[in-house]
């Protein structure tokens, strides 16, 4: 019985932590901000390393820096001019990445809620 539970748990965990390679789209909303901001990521996972690009749309993409995967968690950064975006996401379901974002400029620091969905069919 215990062995079955262990196998099922292992399978569920591996399904959750699936390869993040592909297109991910969604939004972020800054805490205390008015708008949701569109997001589009083109991710490439190689083992525990995450690379690719991200930005508000397909035409405006910034290279991913310091991307790494740890189980079902993904962390990476983007520098879009004066602002640096540090993402801390978790794969909450197959094809769904949710988590927090820290935005920092030379004077300001803000946090935001991020929600992304895989759009592999695109």
């Amino acid at each position, binding site marked *: 019985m215990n062995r079955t539970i262990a196998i099922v748990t292992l399978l569920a965990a591996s399904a959750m932590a699936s390869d993040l390679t592909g297109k991910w789209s969604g939004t972020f909303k800054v805490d*205390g901000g008015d708008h949701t901001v569109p997001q589009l990521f083109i991710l490439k996972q190689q083992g525990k390393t995450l690379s690719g690009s991200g930005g508000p749309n397909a*035409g405006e993409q910034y*290279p991913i820096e310091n991307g790494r995967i740890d189980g079902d968690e993904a962390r990476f950064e983007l520098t*879009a*001019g*004066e602002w*640096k975006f540090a993402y801390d996401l978790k794969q909450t379901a197959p094809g769904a990445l949710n988590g927090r974002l820290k935005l920092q400029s030379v*004077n300001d*620091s803000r*946090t935001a809620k991020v929600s992304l969905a895989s759009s592999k069919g695109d």
Partner: protein
Amino acid sequence: MIAGAFLVVLGITGGILAFEPELDRLLHPHLSRLKPGGRTLSLVDIGEAASKKYSGEPVVAYLPSSSPDVPTAVILSSGVVSVNQYTGEVLGLRTRGQTVLGFMRALHVRLATGDIGRNILHWSTILMLISLTSGLYLWWPRKRIQIRGPWWSRLFWSDQHNSFGIFSLVPWLLLTATGIVIGFEDEVSSLLDKMYDTKPVHSNQTLARSEPSQASTELTPDQAIAIASAQLPGALPYRLQMPRYGGLYVVSLTYSDNRIGAERNSISLDPRNGRIVAVNQSASLTPRERFMATNEAIHTGNILGMPTRIMAALASILLPLQVVSGLLIWVRRTNILRHG
């Protein structure tokens, strides 16, 4: 009374933020000023000096010098580097993160908290508008414009409240009304879009861009700025985004004599051949964008330059005094009623 506390926060922080750029330079003098002299280096040389100093990080963007005694800024992943454009000397790095001024802004916009703080401030501005209207109603019968009595007397504070209130009424009304518009931006934008039958997204912002490419960069940053500047004579380039960060060179330009959305000019260039891919001009803002830019210029005091910035700062700083005198009048009146 509670709203008064929030208005004190808005007033103090607003007064400080009216001079945010100047205060920021004052807090970082070694990164903000230099002694001009000699030939100006190319942006490539300036970028290389900054990059070399910080582990070879690629340049994200340049902020060209706006005046001979202001250094050129180079944006890297680790922060913003100030470089002497005449010697190539790296003056220092400003890392990202909240500063005192950033905290003031956070307090002013959202009480340094999230959605709750933002909503409290939004409704405080509505209460401010009601207070200003009721204040005018109460002032009107007596029309007091002078201060009498010693400073500790009720008469002094009553006269101060009346006279400061009437002289500051117009700036306060402007700051409050524009603050309400900023606070309810989504609702106002939606209303304006319906009124003018415009699409919520500016059509020029969605033009096609080149694929990001590092290897094919042939145009130099200086050439990109020269091409963009030729397109908008009289405009000053204040920012250049490198193609690795977005696929294109994006040159942002501003007109020093126009204070309404003047910084919203940008020209996107193909880094391989210098072809202009997209042009956004402040002259072609939609009615909603123009309204919002004008509203912001009034709120910040930028609308007519330094005189209106000083006026906005003074009006903001006087607001806490008005709240305190209003409170003193209320407390004394309550005591008189209670004790006969």
